[in-house]
């Protein structure tokens, strides 16, 4: 068990190394000179000497592998480098954004689960019934809606037509409302589709026939089916965290929510590469760790699955 977990951690580190290398390489190949851009943004007239000096200061004149090595060793020490835009360290910027993103993402996840879990259970156990048909239709539509469209339609109806909310989200509970719904609706759609399918698969298992043959009450059968599905359901949730992260970039930008997603969009506009890199690494680590943890949890809940 411990050996397996250690192996998992090792492969996780390898995956992260490869990804960091790829992203860093991409940034290296990206068009444009960050030093030149930075100087022109700060309004400093660009001469060859100034540019060279700035390039040296930013470390842009050194070979690729050296720069990658330095950047990587910095990250291991928790130092994400400093922003091209204002020379501030990237780490605290990302940290502050991450906190806000966590609030947004976590609330959306909870809302999506509160909607999806009961509906998929009812849907699966009353397969082809009226509720199932409605739930399937709604989840299909929800799954087909891009979250930026949902948020714009929500803004239109709630902020403009009904005038219930401010268009720009302040970092408070009221401002959280629309972004959370925008993220939760498509996620709930995907959850329902996947959870319903999982429950239906589980209901085809032999033990369900066995329990029915023994005349076991429906309540107990539901309990057993849920008990056996829960491991898979955790995996389903963990995998959705990926699109939740992608979605929150869009939603944060629309509602000006001060999270890591908005930060990264601002940094993309400003070609502030250290922030973008830090973002990818942080999200990557979070996503990987959550998914590995869900594997471990799945194994604990259902010892038949391999770790």
């Amino acid at each position, binding site marked *: 068990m411990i050996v397996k977990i250690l192996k998992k951690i090792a492969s996780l580190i390898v995956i992260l190394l490869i990804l960091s290398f790829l992203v860093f390489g991409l940034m290296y190949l990206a068009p444009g000179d960050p030093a030149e851009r930075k100087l022109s943004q700060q309004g400093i007239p660009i001469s060859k000497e100034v540019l060279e000096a700035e390039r040296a200061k930013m470390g842009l004149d050194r070979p690729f592998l050296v720069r990658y090595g330095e950047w990587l060793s910095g990250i291991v020490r928790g130092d994400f480098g400093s922003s091209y835009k204002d020379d501030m360290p990237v780490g605290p910027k990302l940290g502050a954004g991450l906190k806000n993103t966590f609030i947004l993402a976590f609330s959306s996840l909870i809302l999506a689960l509160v909607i999806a879990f009961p509906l998929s259970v009812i849907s699966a156990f009353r397969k082809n019934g009226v509720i199932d048909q409605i739930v399937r239709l709604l989840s299909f539509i929800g799954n087909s809606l891009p979250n930026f469209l949902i948020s714009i339609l929500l803004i239109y109806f709630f902020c403009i037509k009904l005038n219930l909310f401010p268009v720009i989200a302040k970092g408070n509970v009221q401002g959280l409302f629309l972004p959370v719904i925008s993220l939760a609706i498509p996620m709930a759609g995907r959850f329902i589709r996947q959870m319903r399918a999982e429950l239906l698969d589980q209901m085809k*298992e*032999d*033990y369900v*026939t*066995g*329990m*029915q*043959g*023994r*005349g*076991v*009450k*429906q309540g*107990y059968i539901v309990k*057993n089916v849920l*008990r*056996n599905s829960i491991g898979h359901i955790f995996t389903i949730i963990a995998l959705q965290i990926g699109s939740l992260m992608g979605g929150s970039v869009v939603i944060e930008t629309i509602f000006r929510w001060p999270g890591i997603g908005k930060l990264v969009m601002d940094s993309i506009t400003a070609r502030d590469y250290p922030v973008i890199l830090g973002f990818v690494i942080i999200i990557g680590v979070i996503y990987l760790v959550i998914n590995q943890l869900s594997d471990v949890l799945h194994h604990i809940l*259902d*010892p*038949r699955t391999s770790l």
Partner: protein
Amino acid sequence: MQDRILEIKDLQIVYDEELAVKRASLFVERGEVLCIVGESGSGKSTVIRAITGNKQVKVKGGQILFEGEDLVPMKKKERQKLLGTKIGLIQQNPAGAFNPIRKFNVQFKETLKSHSLPFILEKLNQLFVTLGLKNTTGILKSRPYEMSGGMNQRIAISAAMLMDPELLLCDEITSALDVTTAISVTDELLRLKNERGTTIILVTHNLGIAANIADRIAIMSKGEVIEFDTAERILHDPQQEYTKSLLRDVPKLMV
């Protein structure tokens, strides 16, 4: 003299939107073994599903009389109460009859609680001993996935017998087994029948197995019961060509 514990009259069953059983009439008397024989797709397992009230099948016409009462119009809850206590089922893959990741004792208790019956360890122990299972408490503390298939099979049979059903339905239980195990399972069934007087309906595609244990045989083909009589008549004086052809194959199947 006649005590038909189960009688099926002109049964029509729809399975997966197709008329899987077009016409089936048969009966079994208390304490007998009835074998329903037919190849796969003949509708024999569908008949069993209709008796247990499986949701996947829909009875379109006819009656299923259990101790004189028609099961078809019966409410789901009442049928659920009959299952296990009066009608037992050993399913196609008996080794999978229990939730693989939960302990047996929890699952036995859930079964008994569903019928408001107490859990009596001594009774289960007796059944386990009859079926050659040792260490009852050890088994109850373990989970199905930790046990061998053979063990799970015997535990499933004991679970079906635990509440002394009067009618035991066995759905193709021998088809997945090798010949020796199949014979040992049918031997167990015969012993239960003799000790407890349980009526048994065994569905199989193997007329050889039926010849070993049946009192009555129903031959099914393409959704119809084409021949139904005592085992003796079917085996020695078959009327239908199809039955004769099945009989010609028997020596090859029997060991």
